[in-house]
């Protein structure tokens, strides 16, 4: 099952977890200790992050290690790139029209 990474990002707790594992790989225990909630609550959030592709899980012996996978942000990047390309092109037309009008005067 593949979840929508943007929907997964909509939870403040899940964003906190992602921040925690953004640059460093951390064990499930380390992640749980950073929060003042029960392990099942953290485990549930880790599962959603894993299913959305935002977090990668690796087993080492008996522990599970997590780190962020930024490739899951690609749909957001594509959306923003499309938005800016469209808007910047509009800016281009306006700025060019303004100088075109000025030079005709």
């Amino acid at each position, binding site marked *: 099952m593949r979840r929508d990474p*943007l*929907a997964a*990002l*909509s*939870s*403040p707790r899940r*964003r*906190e977890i*992602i*921040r925690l594992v*953004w*640059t460093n790989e951390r064990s499930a225990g380390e992640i749980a200790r950073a929060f003042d909630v029960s392990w099942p609550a953290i485990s549930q959030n880790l599962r959603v992050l894993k299913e959305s592709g935002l977090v990668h899980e690796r087993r080492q012996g008996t522990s599970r290690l997590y780190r*962020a996978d*930024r490739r899951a*942000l690609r749909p*957001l*990047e594509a959306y*923003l*790139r499309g938005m*800016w*390309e469209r*808007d*910047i*092109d*509009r*800016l*281009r037309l*306006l*700025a*060019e029209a*303004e*100088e075109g009008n000025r030079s005709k005067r």
Partner: protein
Amino acid sequence: MIEGGLNVEVVQRIAASPATVFSYLVEPAKFSAWMGVGAELDPRPGGRVRIDVDGEHFALGEFREVDPPHRVVMSWGWEKNDAVPPGSTIVEITLTPDGAGTILRLRHLGLPGEEEKRSHEGGWRQYIGKLAAVLNSH
């Protein structure tokens, strides 16, 4: 460049001077002609940016750098959007003269690499607090 996190870059040549292009980045009436339907802009470091995207959605942030006619940096996010909340990302626009025209380079970065770079959670919280204070003072 920020390691990890969001990384969007758009480069566009515009057949107009940097000064003309720059005016579209900092003057509210000109800004809303190319993005959204309305804009409140206070183009100085710490000054507020609020863009009415479609009458329902608002982009919110603050100017970080304003260097006419070369460069504008602002924080960026959407009101009531948990995935990209206000101030969670950075938009950097650089203008470089190119003959009689301008090369516009826009980079949209952050989320959550940008926060990480601001040295940990405390820094991030502080930043959000500062942003809230700036917004409330207007």
